[in-house]
């Protein structure tokens, strides 16, 4: 590989807003991704609070049922596509070039476009609430044929999904190319920090899965407007066909959310254990197996559609198998901590919160993977509890860990450690108050996506709603911590974390300069 020489980037630097609109710098783009993600987290979170407000007690108090369904739909979509995924793409943008010793991403202009596709998509989603008939009330899974009955909001949603898909695909192509082609001399694949590995695998999942989702919503669109019968039995189609296509995307999607989170945690835990990651190679293989398996298990979301029993058995066995590589990861993290020299700054706390609660979410996933049990639990709050454990306490907590971990590198200032700890403890407590009780609701038979429920479910729902408001308020503290750090944080030491050993800590000053590694470092 040829060396990368110095560049002169001095001229043509737009300032003000145009700096952000036109930027081709991976750090600027990473920052935009992260702030966009946080804004969407607020929007999606407020929607969740509307749901929880309505569910505080039986009866209809706050919103109409249609509006409730719309909130459920938008909450799911916005959190998944607007909050969590962009957050990790933000990390990828900031970190991958620095971690592999590259001057920037492989396609800087394309990188800018990947980001700037998000605001139009988000606008379409939000706009859909204000058109006649309101937003689509179909759930984030957009099952046919309910989608065929919807109004204009549905079409806005479909196009939003198309654009989000484009953004993800372009972003992923960029990430893959960067990792494969831009590594500094000596940075072999098996020397890459695990975060980089996880993103390579995630990007592969995205390129493989997002086009399938685009196909699914395209068929929805033609069924709605152009007389096709993909999802209509009268014309030889099948509503269940939509589910197959959706989940062929949808199951890899949940690992698209989880795997970069694994990556962040795999950087944070060794740093605060002051010990190298245990079983690096097996972590790489485990992640790759999760990615491969994730394309083979999709119908575990469809145990009640009436598949032939042989198919159910296959999907059950294949799904259970994912516990093995995921278990390897969990064990490796624990082994990394084992006989280390642990300290518990905020990033480590969130990583441990992740480790503990994600594993619990994985366990409930395993319960759901057992078809006979899932027949009872499918479409109940048990499932809602399961996926909030893996996505909120999993992915979101990991993103928090990453922000606290790298913030000093990014802005050259420290956050307030005491407040950070408060953020962690409030989050973990209120998270469990909100979602632990939902397991019991699901076991007792409370369906999901309902605005009103029978009296037996009242107590746990009240607890859950109180927890949700507590959890939401705790996130305002996070915003405050960020602003405080940016405006008046203490200057960060060159290497705030004793155990951090990747290139951005060892080879770059703090804060990282606007252009890093114009001359590639040599990695031993």
């Amino acid at each position, binding site marked *: 590989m040829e060396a990368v020489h110095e560049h002169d980037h001095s001229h043509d630097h737009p300032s003000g807003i145009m700096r952000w609109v036109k930027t081709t710098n991976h750090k600027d783009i990473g920052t935009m991704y992260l702030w966009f993600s946080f804004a969407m987290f607020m929007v999606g979170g407020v929607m969740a609070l509307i749901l929880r407000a309505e569910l505080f007690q*039986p*009866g209809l*108090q*706050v*919103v*109409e049922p249609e*509006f409730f369904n*719309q909130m459920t739909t938008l909450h799911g979509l916005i959190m998944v596509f607007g909050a969590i995924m962009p957050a990790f793409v933000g990390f990828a943008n900031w970190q991958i070039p620095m971690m592999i010793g590259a001057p920037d991403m492989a396609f800087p202009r394309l990188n800018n476009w990947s980001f700037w596709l998000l605001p139009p998509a988000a606008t379409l989603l939000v706009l859909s609430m204000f058109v006649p008939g*309101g937003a689509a009330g*179909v*759930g984030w899974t957009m*099952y046919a*044929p*309910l989608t065929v*009955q919807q109004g204009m909001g549905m079409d806005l949603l479909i196009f939003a999904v198309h654009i989000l898909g484009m953004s993800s695909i372009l972003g992923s192509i960029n990430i893959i190319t960067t990792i494969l082609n831009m590594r500094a001399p000596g940075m072999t694949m098996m020397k890459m920090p695990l975060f980089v590995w996880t993103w390579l695998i995630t990007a592969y999942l995205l390129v493989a899965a997002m086009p399938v989702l685009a196909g699914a919503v395209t068929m929805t669109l033609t069924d709605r407007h152009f007389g096709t019968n993909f999802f209509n039995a009268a014309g030889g189609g*099948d*509503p269940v066909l939509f589910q197959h296509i959706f989940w062929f995307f949808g199951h890899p999607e949940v690992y698209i959310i989880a795997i970069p989170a694994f990556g962040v945690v795999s950087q944070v835990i060794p740093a605060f254990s002051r010990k*190298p*990651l*245990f*079983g*690096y190679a097996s972590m790489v293989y485990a992640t790759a197996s999760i990615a491969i398996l994730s394309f083979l298990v999709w119908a575990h979301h469809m145990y*009640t*559609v009436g598949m032939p*029993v042989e198919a159910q058995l296959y999907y059950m066995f294949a799904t*259970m198998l994912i*516990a*093995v590589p995921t*278990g390897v990861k*969990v*064990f490796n993290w*624990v*082994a990394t*901590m084992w*006989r280390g*020299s*642990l*300290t*518990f700054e905020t990033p480590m706390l969130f990583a441990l919160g992740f480790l503990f609660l994600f*594993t619990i979410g994985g*366990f409930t996933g395993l*319960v759901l993977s*057992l*078809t*006979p*049990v899932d027949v009872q639990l499918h*479409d109940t709050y048990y499932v809602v509890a399961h996926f909030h454990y893996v996505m909120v306490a999993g992915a979101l907590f990991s993103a928090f860990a990453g922000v606290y971990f790298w913030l000093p590198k990014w802005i050259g200032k420290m956050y307030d450690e005491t407040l950070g700890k408060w953020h962690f403890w409030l989050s973990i407590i209120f998270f469990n108050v909100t979602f632990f009780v939902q397991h*019991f609701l699901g076991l*007792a*038979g409370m369906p999901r996506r*309902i*605005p*009103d*429920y*029978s*009296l037996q479910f009242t*107590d746990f729902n*009240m*607890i859950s709603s*109180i927890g949700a408001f507590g959890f939401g308020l705790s996130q305002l503290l996070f915003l405050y911590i960020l602003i405080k750090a940016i405006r008046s944080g203490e200057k960060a030491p060159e290497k705030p974390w004793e155990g951090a050993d990747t290139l951005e800590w060892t080879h770059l000053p703090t804060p990282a300069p606007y252009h890093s590694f114009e001359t590639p470092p040599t990695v031993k």
Partner: protein
Amino acid sequence: MIKNDIKSTFGGSMRLTAFLRLICVGTVMLVPGLAAAELQWNFKPANTEIGVAVHDLHSLVMWIIVLIAIVVFGAMFYAIVKHRKSAGHQAHQFHENTTIEIVWTVVPVFILVGMAFPATKALLELRDSSAPDMTIKATGYQWKWGYDYLDEGISFYSTLSTPREQIEGDTEKGENYLLEVDNPVVVPVGKKVRILTTANDVLHAWYVPELTVKQDAIPGFIRDTWFRAEKTGTFRGQCAELCGKEHGFMPIVVNVVSEDEYKIWVAEQKSRVAARN
């Protein structure tokens, strides 16, 4: 036109202040309320043999999980307590051990195989709807259920009977709030009842927790499930697939009665049909 729509969508939020007041009062009342309430921590008791098997499977898996959790989290918390820097612990720089990697890959495989056996057995039973004693077709509509007793020629609709005032909060909510219908399904105890599900418009799902059945109802297709109730009684469930606005308001009520009562009910239904014609 657009304005009107916004109003109807957000119309409910007029009740927001009332709601906020409620949330405060509710929180205060919750604590003593919880102590007194009988909380449902697990599945409701199953009223079918296969349901009991499913619950046993769930319990078994839960115990296995608890054991694994004790081991994993035990090690994690041990490290947190003993291997902390503030306790003066020095980091050991090991980072590989092939033996242990193999162990913790292989042992979970065995555990999973152990779970797969009872799960497969339960699943095969659960899906074996052959040789039923009677067959009922359940059709999902937006938003009610239609039932056809295929052998008896009885047909009726089953609609939520909870009055609107209870939902809006204008009157006290009854005991079976949202889980009551005008015409319940009636079946004899101890008989293998096969339920054929289908739908008229969009997806619905026929779900009765205590009978351990949940089957999606798909427009244009027939799917089936079955149960054999062990005890008489009334069993309540709900539509379990998002089907639009009133998805939360299309319950399922099954009256399991003795064989004799069932015969009387059938005769009554038939004479009602005859009277109508």
